[in-house]
């Protein structure tokens, strides 16, 4: 059984007991434990079920590579699925439940798949479940979906209780990994004077070195780590950050760091995760190496663990994974585990060394310690059900005949080590195959390159393929100093010197035994979480899924939450052998960020709730809200759609607002309309190019409606232009157009007509602007007093500057409603005060604020087009009967050439008309007018569509604007608009101006 040892555990504080629950069962651990070490200390060997066969799964690793031990952690607003127990720091009150089983971990009905395993090889679902067709959706898929998935989905109605944030950091040298290699690299770069940041994914510095032994500068590694950390902490130019993982390396030295700030103390003040957005000139990746499992039958049973993990649990946490631990290996490092087990007072019945000639100095030490060592042997099969009970031994060179059976309760396996090359590879760093040590390591000659075309990542230590302590320290010194030197920081001192026992060469072992028969291969797991076995990869190769990407996708090897950290190289080797080609020819799959999964919360950062996205507010925002405005988002602005009073529907409110505006006085917050100042000796010339019509000949003091197109000829914006003085124009744009048109003008000025002397400034927000509309509009302004707004002084389509009610104001005689109308602009800081004056002065006229919907109906009654309704990016001004606003005199304006193309001048284009339903009803939004017959694809032919359709309170009936093929020539014709419910509505083509065609009401 796994248990807590009576002593040992360099990371745990035995003085501080911590209690937690697993599947509702109360357990205890120590401060410093991971959830994984604490579970093992409580003899919780089985912690989950595999994805496909629902086989029992135990902890196999001690770090980020763990594929099995995933739990639902926490509850309610802090519940998180798929948390790796090996990287979860234990805290008091932690609650965890195991995943992927029903009804319970011990008895899982899904485990029946394990008896059907013969019928469920890789890719089985591509070959079945096809008949009958309807069964896929209703029977097969629901079953597959239900049995797939791992953790629980968090509750849909509970908001995440935690907060997240981002941080931007800029460094010369970023060192990723706080093991001895990372520490040494940081020291080397830091001593040279570079700005260094050192990040480490765990809470501890020093990595595996203190567990592995040897000496650094004559000291125990732990002592050297303390000394190094002390020196680094004292350096001004070095920043150290534990619990921060290098998640991804992106182009141009951009790195994501994932800091788990409060995961070990949930609910503490501040953020849970911080996403570091680091821009580094050079990156030293010192992420270490990951031990590989061996592929033998039954290698997935709980109790079979990586040899290094067994050692970690004993040394770091004082936890024994078993009393009798069989060690199986192809390299010397696993002997350290055997020695550690022995030193803890536990038994090692045998070390099975697959190498015919066995190991070196460490093997001698093991033998000296009295451990039985068998060279050239391996495991034929692990015995046991929900946990290991023994192993059957065979010759590695054979086919699996059992020589001997040995009882044990744990197996420590080591298939060699793979450098962590992920960060090197994210941005295109190339790998080379080191056949001697059976691993891919970075090809230093082919690094990922940055904006200058220079390599910007180097690897150090294990991550660079330096596997012994002496090599690690030498490499780290070199890489750290080298990275700094490339940036001009020279003169780093010599680094520390590591010493460790000499090791005999490892031997690649991809299958155990080498000639394992099919029955053994079908039980030799490669990917524990996704249940991919040696036989599955071989099947993929046999069926022609030969590329590594095909084999991966066909078998799902390496696609689990660990992204193949344990399985990829083994699977790749099996595939290569199956294809009879060398491993490097098979190649690796692409390494993609993140290194291990990072929370969506962290990715989103602080952007939630009120700061999710900016809301742009006018000076009346609070007032609108106080009036119960129903908001409509328009870009990032919020505009009142209408102001419903108690008991009023939106429709009622809109009707009231329109009637009051037509009959007396309506007020609109038009502040969001864009206002651009265009000034300079060439401003007129420039505006003639920007607008379809002439602006250069507009007289000072006058206003003119203008159209803007894009270079394709399509109408993109409209608005009233006012000439301020000899060389200054004020251009109004739509609400959505202000920034866009400003950018559009700057673009043309800077990149095409840079010889023109014109400056543009966006003054949209400088001014609050209000439309004062209706027969009493003039009276209310006259009440405020200060400037002459009479018809004589300020006729239609003119503007004037002065004061109104004591406030500096500009008054524009323009109308988007067909009524007597002024738009008054006042400085935004006085917008609210001016609005209050307007309301007060307008009280006697029943002054009524109206929203965007009333605005739309008022303009539609008048036949005015609306950008975004009548236009959709495919409509040219000519389609909307706006030929009068297109200058024929000009040789050029933006869009002119585009409008000359053959499709744009076709006589049968759909053109603007008014539409009046025969029954007075409102045509549904978006309806199309049908034509006879169907097209060659069997689609009903159409001849037009509505673009705006409303109930008109003024006319007491439905009205619509639309574009209809050759419409203006078809006045009086009746066309039909089918509805989506199968019925249709008939409408007569009429003039688009429904109200006051003569303009009598606005020209007063």
């Amino acid at each position, binding site marked *: 059984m796994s248990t807590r040892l009576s002593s040992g555990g360099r990371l745990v504080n035995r003085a501080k007991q911590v209690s937690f629950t697993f599947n509702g069962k109360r357990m205890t651990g120590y401060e410093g434990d991971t959830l994984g070490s604490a579970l093992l200390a409580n003899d919780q060997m089985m912690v989950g079920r595999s*994805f496909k066969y629902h086989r029992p799964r135990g902890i196999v690793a001690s770090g980020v590579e763990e594929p099995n031990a995933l739990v639902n952690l926490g509850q309610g607003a802090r519940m*998180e*699925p798929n948390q790796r127990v090996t990287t979860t720091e234990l805290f008091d009150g932690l609650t965890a439940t195991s995943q992927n089983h*029903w009804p319970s971990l011990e008895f899982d009905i899904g485990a029946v798949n394990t008896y*059907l395993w013969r*019928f469920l*090889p890789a890719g089985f*679902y*591509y*070959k*079945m*479940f096809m*008949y009958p*067709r309807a069964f*896929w959706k209703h029977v097969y898929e629901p*079953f597959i*979906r239900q049995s797939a998935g*791992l953790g*629980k*989905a*968090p*509750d*849909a109605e*509970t908001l*995440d209780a935690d907060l997240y944030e981002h941080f931007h950091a800029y460094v010369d040298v970023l060192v990723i990994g706080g093991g001895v290699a990372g520490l040494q690299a940081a020291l080397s770069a830091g001593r040279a004077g570079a700005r260094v940041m050192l990040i480490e994914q765990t809470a501890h510095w020093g990595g595996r070195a203190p567990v592995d032994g040897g000496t650094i500068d004559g000291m125990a590694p732990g002592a050297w780590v303390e000394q190094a950390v002390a020196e680094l902490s004292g350096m001004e130019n070095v920043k150290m950050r534990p619990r921060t993982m290098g998640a991804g390396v992106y*182009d141009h030295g951009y790195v994501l760091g994932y800091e788990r700030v409060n995961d070990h103390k949930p609910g503490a003040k501040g953020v849970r995760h911080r996403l570091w*957005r680091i821009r580094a000139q050079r990156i030293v990746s010192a992420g270490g190496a990951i031990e590989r499992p061996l592929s033998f039958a039954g290698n997935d049973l709980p109790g079979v663990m990586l040899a290094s993990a067994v050692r970690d649990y004993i040394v770091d946490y004082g936890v024994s994974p078993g009393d009798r631990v069989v060690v199986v290996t192809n390299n010397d490092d696993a002997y350290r585990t055997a020695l550690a087990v022995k030193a803890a007072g536990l038994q090692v019945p045998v070390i099975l060394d697959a190498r015919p000639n066995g190991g070196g100095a460490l093997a001698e030490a093991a033998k000296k310690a009295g451990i039985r060592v068998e060279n050239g042997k391996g495991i034929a099969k692990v015995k046991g059900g929900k946990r290991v009970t023994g192993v059957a031994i065979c010759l590695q060179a054979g086919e699996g005949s059992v020589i001997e059976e040995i009882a044990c309760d744990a197996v420590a396996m080591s298939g060699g080590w793979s450098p962590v090359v992920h960060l090197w590879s994210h941005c295109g760093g190339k790998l080379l195959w080191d056949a001697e040590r059976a691993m891919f390591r970075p090809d230093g000659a082919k690094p990922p390159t940055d904006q200058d075309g220079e390599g910007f990542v180097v690897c150090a230590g294990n991550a660079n393929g330096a596997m012994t302590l002496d090599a690690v320290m030498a490499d780290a010194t070199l890489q750290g100093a080298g990275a700094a030197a490339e940036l001009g920081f020279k003169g780093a001192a010599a680094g520390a010197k590591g010493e460790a026992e000499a090791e005999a060469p490892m031997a690649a072992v991809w299958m155990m035994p080498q000639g394992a028969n099919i*029955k053994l291969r079908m039980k030799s797991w490669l990917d524990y979480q996704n249940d991919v076995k040696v036989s599955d990869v071989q*099947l993929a190769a046999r*069926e*022609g*899924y030969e*590329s590594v990407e095909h084999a991966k996708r*066909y078998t799902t090897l390496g696609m689990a*939450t660990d992204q193949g950290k344990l399985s990829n190289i083994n699977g790749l080797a099996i595939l290569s052998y199956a294809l009879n080609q060398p491993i490097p020819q098979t190649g690796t799959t*692409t390494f*993609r*960020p*993140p290194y291990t999964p*990072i*929370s*969506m919360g962290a*990715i989103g950062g602080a952007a939630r*709730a009120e700061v999710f*996205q900016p809301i742009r507010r006018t000076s009346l925002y609070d007032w609108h809200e106080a009036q119960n405005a129903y908001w409509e*988002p*328009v870009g990032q602005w919020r505009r009142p*759609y209408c102001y419903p009073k108690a008991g009023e529907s939106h429709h009622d409110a809109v009707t009231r607002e329109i009637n009051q505006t037509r009959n007396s006085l309506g007020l609109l917050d038009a502040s969001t309309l864009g206002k651009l100042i265009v000034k300079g000796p060439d401003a007129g010339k420039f505006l003639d190019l920007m607008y379809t019509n002439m602006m250069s000949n507009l007289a000072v003091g006058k206003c003119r409606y203008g159209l803007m197109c894009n270079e394709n000829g399509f109408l993109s914006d409209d608005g009233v232009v006012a000439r301020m003085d000899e060389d200054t124009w004020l251009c109004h744009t739509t609400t959505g157009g202000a920034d866009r048109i400003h950018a559009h003008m700057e673009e043309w000025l800077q990149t095409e007509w840079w010889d023109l002397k014109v400056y543009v400034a966006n003054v949209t927000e400088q001014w609050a602007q209000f439309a004062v509309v209706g027969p009493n509009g003039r009276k209310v302004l006259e009440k405020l007093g200060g400037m002459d707004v009479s018809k004589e002084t300020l006729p239609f389509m003119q503007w004037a500057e002065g004061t109104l009610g004591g406030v500096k104001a500009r008054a524009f005689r323009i109308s988007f409603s067909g009524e007597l109308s002024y738009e008054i602009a006042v400085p935004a800081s006085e917008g609210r005060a001016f609005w209050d004056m307007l309301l007060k002065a307008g009280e006697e006229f029943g002054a009524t604020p109206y929203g965007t919907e009333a605005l739309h109906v008022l303009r539609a009654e008048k036949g005015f087009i609306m950008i975004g*309704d009548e236009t959709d990016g*495919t409509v040219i001004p000519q389609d909307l009967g706006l030929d009068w606003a297109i200058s024929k005199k000009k040789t050029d304006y933006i869009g002119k050439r*585009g409008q000359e193309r*053959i499709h744009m001048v076709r006589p049968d284009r759909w053109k603007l008309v008014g539409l009046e339903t025969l029954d007075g009803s409102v045509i549904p939004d978006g309806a*199309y007018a*049908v034509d006879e017959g169907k*097209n*060659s*694809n069997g*689609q009903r032919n159409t001849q037009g569509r509505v673009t705006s359709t409303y109930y008109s309170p003024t006319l007491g009936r439905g009205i619509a604007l639309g574009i209809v093929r050759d419409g203006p020539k078809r006045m009086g014709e009746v066309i039909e608009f*089918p509805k*989506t419910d199968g019925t249709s509505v008939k409408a007569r083509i009429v003039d688009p101006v429904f109200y006051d065609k003569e303009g009598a009401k606005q020209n007063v």
Partner: protein
Amino acid sequence: MTGGFQPYDALMSLFREFAALPVAFDWAEKDSKTTRGHPRQRRGIRPDMKRYSAFAIAREALRHHTGWERAWRSPEPKKKYDAIIVGAGGHGLATAYYLGKNYGIKNVAILEKGWLGGGNTGRNTTIIRSNYLQDPSAAIYEKARSLYETMSQDLNYNVMFSPRGVMMLAQTQHEIRGYKRTAHANKLQGVATEFISPQRVKELVPIINIDGPRYPVLGALWQPRGGTARHDAVAWGYARACSAMGMDVIQQCEVTGVRTEGGKVIGVDTTKGAIDCDKLGLVVAGHSGVLAEKAGFRLPIESLALQALVSEPIKPCMNVVVMANTVHGYMSQSDKGEMVIGGGTDGFNNYTQRGSFHHIEETVRALNETFPIISRLKMLRQWGGIVDMTGDRSPLLSKTPVEGIFVNCGWGTGGFKAIPGSGWAMAELMAKGHSPLTDEFSMFRFREGRFIDESVAAGVAH
């Protein structure tokens, strides 16, 4: 757990797969009643190719699955083919498949510089829908969607088409009008969609936050027969079927040159030697421009990186596909349990298959707000693909300035859903010289000012 699911019932259905084998064959026969002849012959699949079925699995299980044959052959190129398709992605393989199936043109090679299905076919978010606004788009996407319905049976390869429904959220007044317009257009195009209420949205997607607060859900355009499929399987299934028809799928064979004579194509040069052909179809997505250059003409496209990501797998919590265009995010849950999320495209030309991280940030930010549970899930993996964009973001299925050369590209971010329709139409274009499905997608349309712009109604490109 989603309501009403009974593990035992589902298990029984699994057993039924094995137990009711003769019945399964009956069903298969029924599917093929409309035409005469042996169903395998009708499908153009060689009678000697082993059919996939639960029975075959059971039979193979007895010999530990050692008897499965290659899904597709691995031939050396012949000297000449009637037609060569460059690009063994979904679109290229589908083109070849329908050339054989619909027009009997089976002396065809499909050349792939890497591995079949290794490009965008295997990198997308697998969404299938046809609720397009413009007639030409709706026609080809609906053709594709309808072919997906029967693809598993047609190919005898389970591509797991899952018509679970696709919805596009309306979160502004403008979007409501846009989607209502699309619903009207779809009605006339024969595409089944409807505009649904916020309450119905919540019923279909229990994990959505319809109250906003920033952008409340005001409704949605709902296509009940939209859905997803297993993307790799589409390429593999077509490849297997093409191979069975006698076509040569030639992988790791890069086209290095295009040979023409008197303005007409006569063959290609490849890393496996020169190969002659009468007709040449260029179907290479992101690399179309590079290949067109070799043939001596330029295409109106630019190549950009598009990104996607998946979360770790969780138990089923969302059965439909949701697209939220106001906040720029879309999401579905795969059969494995991962939340599959589509991100944005970079604004600059890029061939790296890596995009910029801020697009991932923007998408996830929006989805955290729309689906609050996402915040506590983790991103497992992000990746990028190269998409080719045309001037109107709609594809090119077109003749080219060189006689005998046809292009199929420019699918932008919407290619996967179109695969069978694209192949069907491209095959017709290559075999007959024109197709009603491709007529509007000519590469020369821009010169005339004729666009097929899908972004017009509610800002939905693809």
